[in-house]
């Protein structure tokens, strides 16, 4: 996290140039969640914005995998955090914060949010519920492991989780 502190802190300058940042600013908004397989293949990428920014979000998710790899290969901490699945913030861009989560089967969950002061507890809670939804989805006997998750139920559940994100702390 030390190295990240040097990154630009002023969100006034538009980041991710060239992709026309079309995101409408909304408080506490998750713009994208993704499931990435253990071979870094996208299993599920879903954006929750109205804008046509799927490509950009794909890029962001893809890039954050570099950080996941880095975290996994150079675990700074040990002991109680050895089996920690929550990876913390991966990749603060100027408009987004990217959080990561790594399951024991090396499946990565990535969360991209526009909420720049999100609470870690909220994110942890989100990932916990997301993980449960994922486990249910891949437990479907008709799901082929390593293939994209096409389950509608999963999509619905994820969208519910996303909608309820941050609500608990809002009060």
């Amino acid at each position, binding site marked *: 996290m030390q190295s990240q502190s040097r990154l630009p802190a002023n969100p006034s300058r538009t980041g991710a*140039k060239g992709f026309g940042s079309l995101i409408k600013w909304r408080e506490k908004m998750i713009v994208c969640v993704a499931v990435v397989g253990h071979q870094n*293949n996208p299993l599920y990428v879903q954006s929750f914005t109205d804008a046509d920014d799927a*490509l950009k979000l794909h890029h962001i998710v*893809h*890039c954050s995998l*570099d950080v996941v790899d880095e975290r996994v290969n150079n675990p700074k901490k040990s002991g109680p955090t050895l089996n920690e699945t929550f990876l913390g913030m991966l990749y603060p861009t100027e408009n987004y914060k990217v959080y990561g989560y790594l399951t024991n089967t090396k499946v990565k969950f990535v969360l991209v949010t526009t909420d720049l002061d999100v609470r870690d507890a909220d994110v942890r809670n989100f990932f916990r519920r997301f993980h449960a939804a994922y486990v249910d989805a891949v437990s479907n006997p008709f799901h082929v492991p390593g293939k994209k998750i096409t389950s509608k139920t999963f999509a619905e559940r994820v969208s519910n989780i996303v909608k309820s994100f941050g609500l608990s702390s809002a009060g």
Partner: protein
Amino acid sequence: MVDPANSTLGKMLLDEITPVVMVIRTSLVEEISQRNGLSFNELLSPFCVFNNIDVPVRTASDQPYRLRKFKLRLFNASDIRQPNIEVANERIRQVITRAGEKDFPDVSAETVPIETVLSTSTTKLLSSWFLFFNKELVRTVSFSEHEAFDHPVACLLAVSSKDDDPINKFVDLFNSDQLPPLFNDGAMDPNILKHFVLVHDNQDGTAERATKILAEMKATFGASNCRLLCINSSEDGSVQHLENPWASFKNDGSSDQQLGRFLSMDDMDELKNAMHDLSSKHIIPYMEQKVRVLNQQVSATRRGFRNQIKNLWWRKGKEDVPDNPNGPTYTFSSMESQIRVLGDYAFMLRDYELALSNYKLLSTDYKLDKAWKHLAGAQEMIGLTHFMLDLSSKDAEYWMEHAFATYSKLGSSGHRNATRCGLWWVEMLKATDQFKEAANVYFRISGEELLHSAVMLEQASYCYLFSSPPLLRKYGFHLVLSGDLYKKCDQIKHAIRTYRSALSVFRGTTWNHIKDHVHFHIGKWYAFLGMFDVAITHMLEILACGHQSKATQELFLRDFFQIVQKTGKTFEVLKLQLPVINISSLRVFFEDHRTYGSDTAVSVKESFWQSLEEDMIPSYSSMKTNWLDSHGKNLTQKYKDSSVCVAGEVIKVDVEFTNPLQIPISVSGVSLICEHSGRSDGTNSDSNSSTSKIELVKLGVDGNLNGDTSSFVLSEVDLLLSGGETILAQLTVVPKVEGTLEIVGVRWKLSGSVSGFCKFDPDLFKKKAAGGKRKSKKSLSNRMKFLVIKSVPKLEATMHHLPESLYAGNLRRLALELRNSSNTPVKNLKMKVSHPRFLSIGDQEVMKTEFPGCLERRGNFAQGHASAKTNKASDNVFLFPEDTVISGESPFLWPVYLRAAVPGNISLYTIIYYEVGDTSSVIRYRLLRMHYNVEVLPSLDVSFQISPRPSRLQEFLVRMDIINKTSSEKFQFHQLSSVGNEWEISLVQPMDTIFPSDFLVAGEALSCYFKLKSCRKRASPEGDVSCKVPLEKSNIRLGHDKSEELYDISRSPLVDFHHCERANQGISKQEHLTEVDFILISRSQSDGKAGLELLSHHACHCSVASSSPIWWLMESPKTIRHDFGLSFCEIKLKMTIHNASDSIASIHFKTFDSTANTNSSTAGASSVSAANEAGWHDTSLQNDIKLTSDAPGNRVAKPLSPVCVSPFIWSASSSTRVKLEPLSSIQIPLQICVFSPGTHDISNYTLHWDLDGPTESSGTCQGQSYYISVLQQD
């Protein structure tokens, strides 16, 4: 860590932060140097760089040190000013454009995989133009007033010896008009070191005049400050410089040879000496001196505690001064400027310690003054000196970051400085291998200027690549970002380059969104540049974009076709992804000795056919010897390798095409790509397997061009695939000439403009064959290779009058037509059908007769069917007559009977074996496999129930239940026959009364009763059993029309089908004599059809109810009136026992007076009715269909009015034993005593029988119910 001076940043600083010499020259001087193709500055520049000047320097400290590397920067006076932003940007743009041209990737070069990118060295990847670009960017902020290292240290004044009045010229040159603005606005001390040079062109004559002027100059300006420079000694201007020193200073790339062509070696030496003297004798000592002076001054006023307090107080007093946005201005004479000069001079003279202490001093002052730009400059220098001193890199970075932040705070005015600062910072980070941080800095540098940002982002991406471990995805992302910006600045070539590099990251991943985006844009940009070929190769990658949205798919396709259109030709593409060819769906159909009657026959499993053919084809061993005899080993060897097909016969290939998109695509001209070679070249075929891509395309095109003239004919198919649709296309090839034919692949045209080719790769097959099921075990590459043999006759068969659907039981005559289109005759025909129950092969003569009229019994019923059987070999193989030879066009007809035995979808398989008349042929025999599907609808449901008639021996009552299960059909019954001659059958009631309507309409049910009588009798004393029932008696007419002839069920198709039915309906365990077979012949009259359809329903193994060989019958008066007041009633009964078996039976008759009878009342009506109903069973049919017939004997539970209450007893012998001869009867008298009036059931006896003879068996029969009513006589 490397020596800071040798790092990139160190070199950069030693290059950039060096003393500046302002050059002022007359136009004639410029002219002299221009003769060499160089400006005066350029002429001198190579000699201003000293790698080992070796001059002792003593600055503030008393300890002198030696300076090794030194450099002077020469600038024209007019250039010493803040560069014009637009000009600078334009220059940078040109640099980038030129680099774009130079670095533009080779079109043919494949993008390198990421592993190779990683292993290539840093320098190779970082193009030199990055350095150049960075330098140019740094230079845009030179000559700023807030820093002193760009301020001229000395002034070089040059006057030509040809100038008039050179002395005055020197004076004129250095007047204030021409001086740069730095001098005029007070930022610089105009009193600087001046050096006077008189330039003499040796071609203008001897140096005499020049020396005279020099003497004058020395007198005027001082001896040490003047110098004569004689150049252009070479007469003809043909001096060639091996290592042209000017090459690197000349940017525009004019021919190197021309540069300095008038400069001889002496001239070069003179130039070198002149500059060396200038540096070592004038500039360095001057700077030394200045440093010393300034240092003393600073020490006196600023160092020490007292001075610092004073300074602080003084500065505080200045706080009232209103804030100038640029901070306060400092003149050259101000203390701050002087400290800055001191620091910069010390820096340039490599006395970094001194420089650092002064910069630090300066930074606190500036901070207090809020002179942010100056502060940033000072902080920047602190960072750099830290770096050069090789102090902690953290500190250096800390100061750089501060400087960067400070510059950034200034807003747009400080942006360029911030950029410069950032670039230095980046280099600093790179020197300590902090590439990730460097990339971040690059990212921060990128600002409003899009083009600059693009370059910065690209550099950032390389930083990610070089960091360890490499952050490849960020590398890719930043390349894409940078490419995007390049595109916005119209630097398309750069954009393509970056995107192509990015491809190496995304290749092989499944991030299709990103991959498609990259490929699509590369394609578009290449198309923009007019390089359509490459554009299309990239566009092809995105065609199968099923995962994209519909709009994107449309966009992709539209752009793709636009590009294709622009090329103006049809493109030939190997592995076109649209449509998707499902290789695993590939199926090849061809005919060798196996030929097929229809497509459906092809899809039947080979093993099924083989099992069916087993007893038809000659055995393998004999076949082999024949082949060896006639053709030798070579050919058989060849057979093993490849399939055999016949010239002129079609090879069909089924290929599945799938449209992965949501939008429809049109595919036209789908055809196979084949390769044909002559017979002899067996070796050639081996090389074919490795047909290269180009050859494949060529083959595909060739096949298109000369399809007709070549040795094979191809079919073409056009498809229109709507979104997501999969179509199975059948492609054919007809070889025309003997030899080998290989099906190489398939080709098609997408939307009429792009030709796609797909090779049927043998590897693909193999992979699939391992997992999937495949009909043949042959290696699959060989499945596509055919040995074409010369044409052999082929039989074609048609089954005439075969209906698609018919009702169960329907009997029809079909005609099998065989045709042989070639002139070579075929012979030895055999035929076999898979379902003899459905198909039966008739006799040829019946073709002439009417059907079903021929079945009618007319006159002689000699057993004509007997002869038909002779033709039948074992297992239903039918041999056509020996003399059957089919050739030429004349069709050959043979009757076949079809009877729909059971409802359902029935597949009928028929195989015709025939031998080829021409013995020289490779194929000796062929098989015609036919497959027909017949849908059989349920029609009549016929069931028979047989129960013995209690009143007659050997007679049975048959109940026939018929239900019409069709939805619309009407049936008319014609006759009911019992098969064999053992049974007599007759109607209980005439048909007119039970069934007046004559037609059984849909859904209707009918029950009628028949009497059945066994006619088995002992005919001869030898014990032969023969029964002969006249045919009239074994058949009954059911139709109302008495004139209609009955059908002879012993005639050919009927009897044959009956045999099959018997076999199919199961072999009964009972003995033959207790079974009856019935055939119900009915006719249907469907509304649409004119003729009557004949139906036959066979019910076999209808078991007569009794299972014992013993039949018996009670006889007595049924009703007796007796006056019980007088006595009990004695009734005489008579029992007739018949032995129906073929052996002697001993029968034991036993009576018992049990109380069971009395219980019959308590058991209630149900038991009574059950007893009464013996022989009748509930069938499910009758539950839901209402019986319309109310014939007598209808199954209604008859309540027995008087209940047997009083017992009776057997009064005669209670046990009787008799022996019965086979098929004989005996009568036993019996007697009972009845004590009370009522109806009595006389069934409390048993019959035990034992059969001798071959099958010894025994059994016990319970008595049958027999009721006697005894009434009270009044």
